[in-house]
């Protein structure tokens, strides 16, 4: 073993140029789908725990079943539906698909967290004069930082890492996700390993940053409910 004879960052630059478009695509649809699925999951969780209506348990059961639905099982109808909606090869399409798929798990997360918020808090807000939406905005939402971080990180990682939906729904350059482009970096007959590895580094960076920023909240979030707040 000896140190590199001519150290260079050339492959990093080459890889970045190849990856920057898809990375931007990925950032857009991952960010949007993360925020949307968390918001919807939060509203679902609030309604399922604090409003209670006939059939709310059944609806929650259906949501939970959604978590176990394998991607592959819905692939064909998904592609057909998306192309009929005109969302094939479209970032909006990826946002829609990832949001829909994400709602199941975020609903579960938020529902469990909101189960810890005492009902008397909601009743107090009601007698103080707040309506359903005001209670969500003024009382429930401000108390939801932890589940938003947990669900957010979870959603970001899983959407960012998704390959299957990306490769099936967005093959063209306009919506190409970074995960698919990373696979495209290796040629059909040979692999330029330095560029491949540099691309991997760029691809891993956003997730790394998210974890570094959110790390401390994440641990608190995982522990939430373990200790009485």
């Amino acid at each position: 073993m000896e140190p590199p004879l001519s150290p260079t960052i050339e492959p990093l630059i080459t890889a970045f140029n190849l990856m920057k478009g898809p990375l931007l695509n990925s950032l857009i649809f991952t960010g949007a789908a993360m925020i949307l699925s968390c918001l919807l999951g939060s509203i679902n969780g609030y309604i399922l725990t604090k409003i209670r209506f006939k059939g709310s348990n059944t609806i929650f059961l259906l949501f939970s079943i959604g978590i176990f639905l394998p991607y592959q099982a819905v692939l064909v109808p998904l592609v057909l539906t998306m192309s009929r909606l005109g969302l094939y090869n479209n970032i909006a399409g990826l946002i829609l698909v990832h949001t829909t798929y994400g709602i199941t798990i975020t609903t579960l997360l938020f529902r469990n967290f909101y189960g810890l918020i005492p009902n008397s808090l909601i009743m107090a807000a009601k007698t103080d004069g707040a309506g359903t939406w005001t209670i969500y905005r003024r009382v429930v939402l401000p108390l939801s930082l932890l589940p938003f971080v947990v669900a957010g990180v979870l959603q970001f990682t899983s959407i960012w890492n998704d390959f299957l939906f990306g490769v099936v729904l967005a093959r063209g350059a306009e919506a190409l996700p970074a995960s698919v482009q990373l696979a495209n970096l290796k040629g059909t007959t040979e692999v330029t390993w330095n560029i491949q590895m540099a691309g991997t580094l760029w691809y891993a960076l956003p997730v790394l940053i998210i974890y570094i920023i959110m790390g401390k909240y994440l641990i608190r979030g995982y522990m939430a409910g373990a200790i009485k707040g």
Partner: protein
Amino acid sequence: MVSITIKNLTKTYGNTIAVKDLNLQIKDKEFFVFLGPSGCGKTTTLFAIAGLVEVDAGEIWIGDELVTSVEQGIHKPPREREISMVFQDYAIYPHMTVFDNIAFPLQIRKTDKHEIEERVKKTAELLGISQLLNRKPRQLSGGQRQRVALGRAMVRRPKVFLMDEPLANLDAKLRVQTRTELKKLQLELGVTTVYVTHDQVEAMTMADRIMVQRDGITEQIGTPDELYNHPSNLFVAGFIGSPEMNFMDCALVEEKKGLCLDAKEFKIFLPSKVSSELRSFIGKQVIMGIRPENIYESKSVEANTMENAVKMTLDLIEPVGPFLLLHLRAGRISLVATVKDTRASAGQEVIMEMDLSKIHLFDKKTTKAIV
């Protein structure tokens, strides 16, 4: 004038009846207490007044406004009823400062900012929490949190206060102290108050009138004095008062000397003047009740010389500070008496006298009081 009128109120949860056919009139400025063991329907009734639960039948009027009517399909949400509520766990908003907690009901109603500030400060002053306005709830003690909850209820100047066991989570000393303050505050503000508790001491000390509930059914409504001295049935007699009233099964028989309660172990002769209702129970089984403070040690040495005296064995003496609890036994009958002092010691035989003007008689079948 804010009275509360409840007509034929019924609420069931599945197969359990929480409240059954309740009729009640709470007067203006009254401190009214719902008292009963847990699961008796008192909180459900309170929530029905607040509009937090939808009822199955009946009507509720707050003042001259009909707020709930199943027949007419009226169910006004809590925000349209001029009530405010204090919860057992205080339910103050953990993410807001004390100021914002108290201001919340006003902010929701879009009250003018200066007015909010003025009213919050005034309320905080009244409750002695002015120095806490910038703190978060987690930095407060239980007693302080309780005051914040009260402040939030008061700041809106509602027509009715609803309180769901607001003192239950405080420690014993603070509870007694807050009890007095709360009662004073209510007198000062003159707001009609409905207060739920399972603690009969709380009910007796604070209430103008009390409703005793059990299993969704009203057992008795009356002033603390009425409930204590004239309980209308066995349940109320046993529930109100600490230590509890003594009960014993007796047969009501007529002897030469007059009417007599025969408890097998001993006989007690009733005064010659008795009501005609009591006469109708001659030959039947009744339950006699007597409060511990109405049994006292006799100066006489012979039980047979008096009609209200009983010879009993003193099992145990419990000193409780201002008085002694004597645990007495005669055969299968045990009694508790509260006395100031005793010459006897545990294990001895003593002659106990009962104040015959203070005994309560109940029909054994219906458990209703016999007048």
